[in-house]
C-alpha cells in the first residue's frame, strides 16, 4: 500500500482510488504511520526542521475526548456554468409548458365526464331540504344549550335571535 500512499501524497491517484485509499489509511494505523513518515520526510527535505513527537498524539487524544462533529452532507459542487445551464433549462421548460397549453386551446371535458352529463331537458333531482321548519324551531329554542356556547362567560352575552323566512307560514 505504501506505493499508493506515495502516489496519493503526490496527487497522482485518480479520485476513486484516492477516496478508497483515504478510507483505508484513516482506518488502519500502519498506513497512517507511513503517511505521517512520508510527510515528515517531505517537510524535512523542504527545510522544516521541526520535530514534536507529542504534538500529534496529544491533539489526537484531545479530539478523541471531543464529541464527534457531524456536519450536514454537502451536495455535489455545481459549477457556475452548470448552474447557469440548469437555470436556462428550467426557463425553457417553463416557456415550453406555457406554449403547449396555449396551442392546445381551452380544456374540454374528457370522455368520462361527458358520459355523466344528463341529456338536455331532463329534470335534475334536487336534494331534499335537510331540516323541516319544526326542527328549526326546536334548534332555535334550545340553541343556548348547544355545546358551542359552553365556554365560560360567553352564554350570558349571547342573545339568540330567529328570523322567519320571508313568505313562510306563521
Amino acid at each position, binding site marked *: 500500500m*505504501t*506505493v499508493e500512499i*506515495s*502516489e*496519493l*501524497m*503526490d*496527487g*497522482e*491517484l*485518480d*479520485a476513486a482510488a*484516492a*477516496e478508497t485509499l*483515504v*478510507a483505508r*489509511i*484513516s*482506518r488502519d*494505523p500502519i498506513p*497512517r*504511520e*507511513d*503517511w*505521517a*513518515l*512520508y*510527510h*515528515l*520526510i*517531505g*517537510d*524535512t*527535505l*523542504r*527545510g*522544516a*526542521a*521541526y*520535530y*514534536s*513527537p*507529542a*504534538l*500529534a498524539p*496529544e*491533539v*489526537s487524544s*484531545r*479530539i*478523541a475526548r*471531543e464529541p*464527534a*462533529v*457531524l*456536519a*450536514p*452532507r*454537502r451536495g455535489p*459542487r455545481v459549477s457556475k456554468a452548470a448552474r447557469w445551464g440548469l437555470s436556462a433549462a428550467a426557463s425553457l421548460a417553463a416557456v415550453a409548458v406555457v406554449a403547449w397549453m396555449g396551442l392546445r386551446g381551452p380544456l374540454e371535458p374528457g370522455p368520462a365526464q361527458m358520459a355523466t352529463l344528463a341529456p338536455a331537458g331532463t329534470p335534475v333531482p334536487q336534494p331534499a331540504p335537510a331540516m323541516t321548519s319544526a326542527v328549526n324551531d326546536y334548534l332555535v329554542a334550545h340553541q343556548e344549550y348547544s355545546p358551542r356556547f359552553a365556554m365560560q362567560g360567553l352564554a350570558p352575552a349571547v342573545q339568540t335571535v330567529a328570523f322567519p323566512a320571508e313568505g313562510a307560514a306563521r
Partner: protein
Amino acid sequence: MGDREIDQALVDRAQRGDKQAFDLLVSKYQRKLARLLSRFIRDPAEIEDVTQEAFIKAYRALPSFRGDSAFYTWLYRIGINTAKNYLVSLGRRAPTSTEFNSEEAETFEDAEHLRDVNTPENELMSRQIAQTVNDTLGSLPEELRSAITLREIEGLSYEDIASIMNCPIGTVRSRIFRAREAIAERLRPLLGTSKDKRW
C-alpha cells in the same frame, strides 16, 4: 486527485465523524502550522501549545468549513487568530493583519528563521532526523535523488518529472516511492517505528 481534493476528502470524512481522518490532517500540517506560528511566538513550548490549540479549534469548527477555500488556508487563519488571542491574553502585542495574511501563509517558507522552533528536548532529535534524511538522500542513486528532489522540493508533477528525466511516468512513480522508502527505512529505527516492531 490534487492536494486540495485529498484534504477535502479527509475533511469530508472528519465531518461525518471519522476522527482518524482529522488525525491525518494533523500529521500532515503540524510542522507547517508550528513554523508559521513561530513567527509570532518565540518560546518553543508555547508554539507547541498554540499549535495544538489551533488544531482543536479547527476540529470544533469543522461543521462550518464548506470548502470555499483550501483546508490549509482555513487552518492557517485559525492558527493566526489563535496566536493573536494567546498573545493578547498575555498582554503582548498581537500581529496585525498587514503583517501576515493567509496568502502569504500558503507560500510561507522560512527555515532559516526557525532554528530555535524546537524545544530543547526535541532539538537533538530534529537535527538527527534532518541529518539522516540528508545523508540518505546523498547516498541514493542519482535517478532516485533527482526524482524525489524534483517532486518534494520543486513540486513538479510526475508528468513534468518524466519529461525532464526522459523516462515513462511509471518509472518516475517507482523512483519517487523507492527514494521515500529508502529514507523511511533509515528513519524508522530513529523514531522507534521500525517495520519489525509493528503490530
